[in-house]
């Protein structure tokens, strides 16, 4: 009989061998946890589906909110600030003022509308042509149509309108600031809702993966007991469960990304029709690529965290 196993003194592993063995165990744990997921496809798919849906919801809201914001900006391009000059202001003064206003950093463009152009527009409106014929002179002033820089928030636009109102040669300023303010406020609420929803659903995903790993650990308590008795550390025992959490998270993140793309695809047609109604000014913007790429690793990290918290608690009880 070979007495090799008992005859030699215990050999402590060298550091290099330990690192290589540690890496090998990581590889084994990753593969083994994946095999275990595949061994019970229905349970694994359900967990991944629940997590995927939970993560897709904030993405869908983010997509919706982003597009509402973009639509607001697109429609807002028509919402120029109309600056009515004093009746005594002539064309040269109007053009000079238009240049001064146009030089401001918060102004994209300024168009001068002459009194004649204003009159012509009025004449096109039904019921006005007769009334205008009765006028012996044009009562309309020069109007500056000031287009704020795109992306300016409601407060900045309001500040711009206030500045224009303060100009001596200006009689009246007509601004659709209230409309912008309401949209901005609504988008602010929406952003908060999406953030709160994302946090709550991330917590839900954390609990889902945590519970799945808890059940997994409970069903393998005998094996864990053996591992601890033969000298396994907590980290060694935990490793396959952490990888299981990572797999659940990664796959659910991929699913969430695919669901978000499907929603984007589904919205494409109706938005195109809506865009046509607005002279092609509306365009649906998809989720940014960085976000789509970031979701799976972020979800994997979430899965790891859920598994880490639960396994640490379960193993403390087992030890």
């Amino acid at each position, binding site marked *: *009989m*070979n*007495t090799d196993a008992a005859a030699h003194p215990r050999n402590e*592993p060298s550091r290099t*061998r330990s690192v290589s063995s540690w890496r090998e165990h990581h590889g084994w744990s990753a593969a083994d946890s994946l095999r275990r997921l595949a061994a019970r496809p229905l349970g694994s798919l359900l967990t991944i589906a629940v997590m995927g849906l939970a993560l897709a919801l904030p993405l869908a809201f983010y997509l919706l909110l982003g597009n509402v914001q973009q639509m607001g900006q697109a429609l807002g391009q028509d919402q120029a600030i109309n600056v009515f000059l004093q009746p005594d202001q002539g064309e040269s003064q109007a053009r000079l003022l238009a240049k001064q206003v146009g030089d401001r950093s918060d102004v994209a463009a300024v168009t001068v509308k002459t009194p004649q152009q204003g009159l012509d527009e009025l004449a096109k409106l039904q019921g006005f042509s007769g009334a205008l014929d009765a006028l012996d002179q044009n009562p309309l002033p020069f109007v500056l149509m000031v287009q704020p820089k795109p992306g300016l928030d409601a407060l900045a636009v309001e500040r711009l309108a206030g500045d224009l109102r303060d100009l001596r040669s200006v009689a009246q300023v007509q601004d659709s600031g209230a409309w912008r303010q309401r949209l901005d406020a609504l988008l602010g609420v929406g952003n908060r809702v999406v953030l709160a929803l994302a946090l709550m659903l991330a917590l839900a995903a954390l609990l889902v993966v945590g519970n799945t790993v808890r059940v997994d650990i409970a069903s393998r308590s005998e094996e864990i007991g053996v591992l601890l008795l*033969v*000298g396994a550390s907590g980290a060694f025992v935990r490793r396959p469960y952490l990888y299981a959490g990572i797999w659940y998270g990664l796959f659910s993140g991929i699913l969430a990304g695919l669901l978000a793309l499907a929603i984007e695809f589904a919205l494409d047609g109706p938005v195109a029709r809506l865009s046509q109604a607005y002279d092609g000014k509306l365009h649906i913007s998809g989720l940014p690529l960085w976000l789509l790429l970031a979701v799976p690793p972020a979800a994997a990290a979430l899965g790891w965290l859920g598994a880490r918290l639960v396994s640490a608690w379960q193993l403390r009880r087992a030890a």
Partner: protein
Amino acid sequence: MIQFDQVSKHYAGGHEALSQLSFTVPTGEMAFVTGHSGAGKSTLLKLLGVIERPSHGTISVDGQNLAKVRGRGIPRLRQRIGMVFQNHRLLMDRTVFANVELPLTIAGLARQERGRRVRAALEKVGLLSYERQLPATLSTGEQQRVGIARAIVGRPSLLIADEPTGNLDPQLALEIMGLFAEFQQVGTTVLIASHDLPLIKRMRKRVVVLDHGRLVADLAAEEVL
């Protein structure tokens, strides 16, 4: 060397499993701990494996006070102790080879070294040809030998066994005890809890007798009749 110094163990509810137990097992000695059911044999082994802690007293293994072994020190200590259980405690979904390999994987040994040692241990217990089988396909005696191979593969300085022959026929039980004796001969300290008196007598090793948690006799090998 194992040293028990005035060790007591009380469980919740007041049950006293061990009472002021003091004895020493020198390095390289093989000893039996015997007594009726409930005498405290299993508790004694659990204290050695730091599965439980004593209520009073001090336990040392190779000069290390087990009371000071905490946290990450526990798995390191267990890697130095080979444990054999009555119910084998094998992982039934892993092959014989993987079961025996487990302590070496935990210890961080390289694959080649692990393979060499596992085959040596399996050869030692006569199961080399079973390495690819699952434990469920083996007999009870063979499963116990897999458990022994797993206990010795890490070359522990101390081997403890709790009723290792409890489910085996007398001939097989004697063979298993012979294996333990071989490990003792190469310098491993062996402590076996057993209530199989005829077998203990045949082995002619030191016997520590417990009764209701107290040490009632400590017989040297030559005193065992």
